[in-house]
């Protein structure tokens, strides 16, 4: 298993190295090479999955060579290694599969880009980092992977940073997530100070035996949550994700929908034993608020990718809601189904954007289903899945499980979730109707639209199938992979994984269908003029949604501007205050030495001239050195040295 785990992560790393070094000169700029390496990684992930299904795990405490001594301090050794359990196996499968499909998709989508080879190199580096994050057996290496995916995200959002907008978006993403990372560093410090270890098993043992007291656990877990909120774009650190849509669409699908942004959910899921009831309540609150808030904003967006981005934020909020409600299994389950249907819809939107010559405004689309049957159909499957269309789609099962958990915790939380579910179904159908149904709104765009080539449609079909079947317990996906892990990480009795409450299920079905039908009636069956008339009373609300509740402006005024001002003030204070004091002292000393040390200066001056001349033989700078001011300074300096030497000799 160790070998397989190493293949999983080293194949794309090798791909990154080769692609960076030779990609540009290879035939087809090396895209086939990277597809092959990520394919190998996927194959190894499947093999690992099979082994885990067979009951094996890779426990670094047991398997020789799965861990090595990385660093040591005093008696403390930092050991790092790889760990594979049910959760890891599921994550590896999802990450490598989506990464593979995105590579294939990109080979058509990015065709003709001047930096084509570089794009694949960074996709490989991203895959490597993400896999490091998932395979790590300790929090420190997880953090390393965590930061490296952030780097790749930065590079890929800013892939077209010849223009200003992608550059700004990339910077915003990196810095916002880094604010979250402060929480991770705090958690690392808190846990390490007490346990002197980062290994998950040591941390969890300390948490369960009580050698990590519950207050420390609460603070550490809140730190982790804060980091997760940065990475997974949860309120109030969600602002970077919509901007990140400046990156190429395959990147949005892979990094900003399926994998990296889900890393926050993975982090909380992985470190679950550290979370106390108090911190779980915060997790649930953050998730609930985010799910509803992002859903509302998504209602009023017209850029197809922005709608999907806010939908991602909202769905991630759902997962946090589930985690906070102790529905661990449900949340991680939703992570996998969401990865499939959201990657599907992002790649679908990529297919549309590709067909419409980089038009992203849905107000200029419409009627595209006819022109793009595969894209349209698979997209529709994705819409049904995210809306939780009952009994068929994967999204139904995972969302229902979260709602059941929330209901169990407190019905109010479930109502929040249900509200978000209605919004989800509604705005997703709005997106679908504006893009694929109705009459074309822009003849020119419609005219040029065409179905995308096979490398783009094939991933859509695969993901479409997965968006349905991932809900079933195929090959023991739940019973053998997620549930055992859930049992291991959550204390007995507090888990209610698959417990279906009929009330909740009914409510979930009603919510999903209500949203879909409302969307259908309003956006497919009602004339635009009538919709506009209906919306009029809510104009103020719509403006608030469209402006994203003003978070960007708020942060600009409350964080960015004060930070820049502070920087300016401190810079001024440094020059005028701190340095001014130094110069003041210098001036005083100089006038003092001028007054008293005239004779000394004469003597010393000669000495300086002598040394200078000796050392600088051949140097032309000497004449410059003899300007008066300089001489005074040197004199003053040498006087001090001389005085000291005199003192010394007594």
């Amino acid at each position: 298993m160790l070998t397989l785990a190493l293949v999983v992560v080293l194949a794309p790393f090798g791909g990154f190295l080769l692609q960076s070094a030779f990609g540009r000169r290879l035939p087809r700029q090396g895209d086939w090479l990277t597809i092959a390496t990520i394919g190998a990684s996927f194959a190894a992930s499947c093999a690992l999955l099979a082994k885990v299904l067979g009951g094996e795990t890779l426990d670094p405490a047991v398997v020789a060579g799965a861990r090595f001594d990385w660093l040591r301090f005093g008696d403390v050794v930092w050991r790092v290694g790889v760990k594979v359990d049910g959760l890891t196996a599921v994550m590896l499968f999802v990450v490598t599969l989506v990464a593979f499909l995105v590579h294939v998709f990109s080979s058509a989508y990015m065709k003709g880009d001047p930096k084509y080879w570089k794009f694949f190199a960074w996709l490989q580096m991203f895959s490597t980092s993400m896999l490091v994050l998932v395979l790590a057996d300790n929090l420190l290496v997880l953090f390393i992977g965590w930061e490296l995916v952030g780097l790749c995200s930065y590079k890929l959002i800013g892939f077209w940073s010849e223009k200003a907008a992608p550059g700004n978006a990339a910077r915003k993403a990196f810095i916002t997530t880094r604010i979250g990372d402060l929480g991770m560093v705090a958690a690392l410090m808190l846990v390490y100070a007490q346990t002197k270890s980062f290994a998950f098993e040591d941390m969890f043992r300390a948490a369960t035996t009580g050698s990590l007291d519950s207050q420390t656990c609460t603070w550490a877990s809140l730190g982790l949550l804060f980091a997760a909120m940065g990475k997974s774009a949860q309120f109030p650190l969600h602002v970077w994700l919509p901007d990140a849509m400046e990156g190429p669409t395959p990147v949005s699908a892979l990094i900003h929908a399926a994998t990296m942004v889900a890393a926050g959910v993975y982090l909380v899921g992985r470190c679950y034993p550290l979370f106390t009831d108090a911190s779980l309540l915060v997790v649930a609150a953050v998730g609930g608020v985010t799910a509803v808030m992002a859903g509302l904003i998504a209602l009023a967006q017209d850029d197809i990718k922005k709608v999907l981005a806010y939908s991602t934020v909202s769905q991630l909020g759902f997962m946090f809601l589930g985690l906070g409600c102790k529905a661990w299994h449900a949340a991680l389950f939703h992570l996998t189904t969401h990865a499939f249907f959201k990657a599907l819809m992002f790649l679908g939107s990529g297919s549309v954007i590709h067909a419409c010559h980089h038009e992203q405004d849905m107000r200029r689309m419409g009627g595209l289903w006819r022109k793009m049957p595969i894209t349209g159909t698979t997209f529709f499957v994705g819409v049904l899945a995210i809306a939780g269309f009952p009994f068929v789609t994967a999204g139904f099962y995972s969302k229902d499980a979260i709602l059941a958990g929330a209901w169990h915790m407190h019905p109010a939380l479930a109502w929040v979730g249900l509200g978000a579910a209605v919004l989800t179904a509604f705005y997703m159908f709005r997106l679908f109707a504006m893009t694929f149904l109705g009459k074309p709104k822009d003849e020119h765009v419609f005219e040029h639209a065409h179905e995308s080539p096979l490398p783009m449609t094939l991933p859509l079909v695969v993901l479409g199938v997965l968006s349905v079947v991932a809900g079933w317990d195929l090959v023991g996906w739940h019973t053998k992979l997620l549930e055992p892990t859930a049992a291991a990480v959550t204390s007995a009795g507090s888990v209610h994984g698959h417990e279906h409450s009929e009330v909740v299920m009914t409510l979930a079905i009603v919510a999903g269908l209500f949203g879909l039908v409302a969307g259908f009636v309003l956006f497919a069956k009602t004339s635009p003029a009538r919709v506009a008339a209906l919306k009029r009373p809510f104009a103020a609300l719509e403006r608030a949604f469209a402006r994203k509740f003003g978070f960007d402006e708020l942060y600009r005024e409350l964080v960015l501007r004060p930070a820049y001002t502070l920087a300016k003030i401190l810079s001024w204070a440094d020059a005028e205050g701190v340095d001014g004091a130094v110069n003041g002292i210098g001036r005083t000393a100089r006038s003092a030495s001028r007054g008293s040390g005239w004779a000394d200066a004469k003597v010393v001056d000669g000495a300086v001239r002598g040394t200078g001349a000796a050392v600088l033989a051949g140097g032309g700078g000497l004449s410059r050195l003899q300007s008066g001011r300089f001489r005074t300074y040197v004199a003053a300096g040498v006087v001090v040295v001389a005085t000291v030497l005199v003192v010394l000799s007594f």
Partner: protein
Amino acid sequence: MGSNLLTLTFLIPLAGSLLVLLVPKESAGRACRWVNLLTSLATFGATLAVWSGWSKHTGGGYALVEDAAWIKAFSIRYHLGVDGVSVALLLLTSFVSLGGSLASWNIEKSPKGYHSMFLLLLGGMIGVFMALDMFLFYLFWEIMLLPMYFLIGIWGGPRRQYAAIKFFLYTLAGSVLMLAAIVLIWIKHGTFQIPEIVALVKAHGGLFGEGAEGLRIACFIAFFVAFAIKVPSFPFHTWLPDAHVEAPTPISMILAGVLLKMGGYGLIRMAYPFFPTAAATLGTTIVVISLISIVYAAFVAMAQTDFKKLVAYSSVSHMGFVTLGLASLTPEGHNGAMYMMLAHGTISPMLFMIVGVIYERAHHRDLDRFGGLAWAMPTYGVLAAFGIFASLGLPALSGFIAEITVFLGSFQSFPRLTLVATVGMVVTAAYYLITLQKVYLGDTPAVYRDKAHYPDVSRRELLVLVPLAIVTLWMGILPDGAMSIYRGDLEGILEGVKAIAGKP
């Protein structure tokens, strides 16, 4: 032992320095730089030999010791020796100087003087890291001051004289304090020998005898200020931005890469082991100073428009980690502080070279006038991004290891203050990414598209940058390699400090 390897190691650059002066004037430029390069190379080789000699040494303590009476009247001895801490810094010194020597290739103005000074500086720095007699230490400390002063004052930018004087006087002020403390120790205990003094501290629980805590604190402060000026710590840092802005590129590399480390070295070698109780008493003060250095300098860096000044302030910010880690008195903190010296010692020369590359082409360093250089000079862009990410503490690069270990160490002793210091991580990311975007991303102004005036990095520039990048990467992925050189001895020093400081 009978080995003269250490003497040889610092004599090589001094001999080179004299050799440069003998070069006939007509062929000065070419010949001098070759002499410089070969001497630097030989010095690097010598430090490798020191490393190997040290690693064969068993039984702890100092290796390759040379000890002879020198000025008997004052019991001053010619006493050299190295432990792991010195070996690591010697390797850093000769390695960075090798890069600096290559970066000095295009010095046109009086090359004889320049290269001679350069090698004199190298000799002085090497001496500092192996002197075991405090007087000798002081001598080397002053020896390297002089060439640095001339290198900035003659070969520097427009305000070079001001910067050189400031550097000189500032360091001198620190030296005077240090000298006073050294003399005081000598008066009281009659020795300048560092190992002897440490043994005295161990035997009697502190210098100056019972009840002299006030004196010990005063002496510690004197040492601390002397070294904090060099580090430099807030509020003694203002000489650094000026010195960097005016210094020629290779001198900035050495200034940031090696000279600042002498401050940290002095703290490790003398201030802490000589006065453990004072160090513990003043722990919180030192942490506050470090914290201000880290966060304050990061904010000041954010407001800079001169690329080089920005990198200079980032040095102040990063070197704050050194004092923060030392103040924690934990193995993680001390090892991390030393690791920061090595990491910063390779990353900051890289960044100064990166600034130098573009300054040489554009003749300005105004951040607001650059743009899109990553497209105009692709290799340069990649290396610059590498340096910037290394400096902002990206994992898998050396700066990350240093920062995280210092944090983990200092949190154990000063949890709240350490949490405040982590804010520096965000500010650092902010100013570096703003810089990256301003200079390298975005649209390329037409001037910089001119291939004739803005060629990509030359082979010589690559030769300077790539080795530094490789070391940064290696130290980030397999940190134990570098750390194992100094860990044993550093932890020994820390044990000694803690054994005394732990007593009430």
